[in-house]
């Protein structure tokens, strides 16, 4: 090796060491793969500038992400994660997450009450929620109750969410309520659906598929989350969002901090920024996430496409996370035995 190459190598090493130091402050988060371009623009990049740190995002479905948290339990890589309330409860039971120190969240008081501590264990803070109801063709039917979905003339024209989707259990729960059963074992609604399983067009897994099915007149109605509503409004069809007499259901996504994370303060700073009126407004306007911050103001047009407002937040019948978590395997087994075949 000549002196020249040696010098070059030494310079490169020194430079990279300096670079590594500047990037030392790194926040690693675990998030849904959904809308990452928008999140990067609205949330990650502005936060990086603000904190002078680097945000590393690991994405995947909830099962993969929870498995990863579990695998790195003793030496956590992830500093904060976002997930469903049921997954947050699972993570809490497995000792993967810590109490959120809400005194460090300046925007905490602005949150809707339902979002402040959704699981009641102090381990999570809600950052977005959504309503789940029924999109339907007004020229073909009228939906006043969740039970209308199983009527003889309607069932052959609906897509129902599979139990494996986030909409599955809440929709079944509301159907159960309409049929007079409040039991979280969901036996009554699963039985009712199984009797119509042959008629029902499909048990959908991805809501993105429904727009095409609606356009092709394959289906006339389907229970969906409000976040999937926007593309339906672009179809040239008489479609409405049902307000069944049993109410609407829905779900909430929460933020958690991992136990043993070395960047706790940075994680809380990031969460606070995410919950700020500014960021929540931008995310709502981009139709990415409905706001959990009550100070967010959006146009009527945006409001119509998301789940918005104090009244809506209060009116949703949400399945408690513990119920979802404790019954998940039993629901899947029951569903597979009765409907899946």
């Amino acid at each position: 090796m000549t002196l020249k190459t040696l010098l070059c190598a030494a310079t490169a090493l020194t430079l990279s060491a300096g670079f590594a130091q500047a990037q030392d402050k790194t926040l690693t988060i675990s998030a849904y793969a959904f809308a990452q371009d928008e999140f990067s623009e609205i949330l990650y990049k502005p936060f990086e500038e603000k904190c002078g740190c680097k945000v590393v995002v690991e994405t995947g479905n909830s099962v993969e992400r929870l498995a990863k948290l579990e695998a790195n339990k003793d030496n956590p890589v992830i500093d904060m994660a976002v997930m469903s309330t049921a997954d947050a409860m699972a993570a809490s039971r497995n000792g993967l997450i810590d109490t959120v120190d809400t005194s460090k969240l300046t925007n905490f008081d602005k949150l809707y009450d339902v979002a402040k501590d959704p699981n009641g264990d102090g381990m999570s803070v809600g950052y977005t929620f959504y309503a789940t109801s029924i999109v339907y063709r007004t020229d073909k039917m009228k939906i006043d109750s969740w039970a209308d979905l199983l009527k003889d003339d309607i069932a052959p024209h609906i897509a129902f969410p599979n139990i494996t989707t986030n909409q599955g259990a809440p929709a079944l729960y509301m159907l159960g309520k309409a049929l007079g059963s409040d039991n979280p074992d969901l036996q009554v609604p699963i039985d009712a659906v199984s009797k119509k399983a042959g008629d029902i067009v499909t048990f959908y897994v991805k809501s993105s598929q429904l727009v095409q099915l609606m356009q092709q007149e394959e289906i006339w109605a389907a229970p969906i989350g409000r976040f999937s509503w926007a593309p339906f409004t672009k179809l040239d069809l008489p479609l409405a969002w049902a307000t069944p007499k049993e109410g609407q259901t829905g779900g909430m996504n929460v933020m958690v901090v991992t136990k043993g994370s070395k960047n706790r303060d940075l994680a809380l700073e990031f969460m606070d920024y995410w919950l700020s009126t500014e960021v929540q407004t931008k995310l709502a306007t981009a139709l990415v996430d409905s706001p959990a911050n009550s100070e967010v103001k959006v146009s009527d047009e945006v409001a119509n496409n998301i789940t918005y407002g104090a009244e809506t937040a209060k009116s949703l019948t949400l399945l408690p996370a513990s119920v979802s978590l404790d019954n998940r395997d039993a629901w899947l087994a029951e569903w597979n035995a009765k409907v899946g075949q």
Partner: protein
Amino acid sequence: MFQNRTEALALALPAAVFAAVVFLVPVALLLSEGFKTADGWTIQAYIDFFSMPLNQAVFLRTLKLGLTVTLAAAVIGYAAAYAIVTLPASSKGKMIGLVVLPLMISPVARTYAWIVILGRTGIINQALSAVGLTDGPVRILFTETAVFIGLLQLFLPLMIISLISALENLPRDAVPAARVLGANWFQVFWKVILPLSREGLIVGGTLVFTGSLTAYITPAILGGSKVLMLETLLYQQVTVANNFVSASIIALILIAMSFAANILLRRIASARSAK
């Protein structure tokens, strides 16, 4: 070809190591999941798996669809391949090009096209009601029929190509000779064409059967969760139930079914040629 075996082995070594590290070892680790328990090795997980009615139904459905798709592909494939090899060289190339063309289109795009074609307002339903065969739209989408059609279209080219290469080696006079000697078309196929093209059938049949068993996109999109197959069940077990034991059992079943199909096809073909 080589001066000694060492030289040949040395050349094969990198590929063998690569295959062992990235394929054999992970597959062995994955499959061992299904036999491992805290107390040692057992096949209890397999007994439990097959005792569940849903798993039995999904297994039988997968087997049935795999077999019917392979059978249909063989019947259509023989007719098409025979027609193509008898064409003059110039049109033969064009026809083979047409057969291969669908393989160049993404299976996702192809499968989505089927949603449009098989739907209530699709071409098939329009045609059926136009000729007066049906009163209203017939449901095809999200049924086994839809999955069958999708899989057949997906894998038929593989069967046709395998059979074309086999039939091209068929002596040109074999079929006319059999006809002159008084064989009917069925006898010509059974006693002349099939024994002479068995390698093509084995390769094509294994590709189509294995492909049908392990296809994910087509059954997921055209069948949905109403027509669960082993592959879609495997996905559900991993992503929803986080049940890696069931998933590894399904993986082993799929591998075993593919091997069984290959052995069976070999048997059938060699039994024919032995006569």
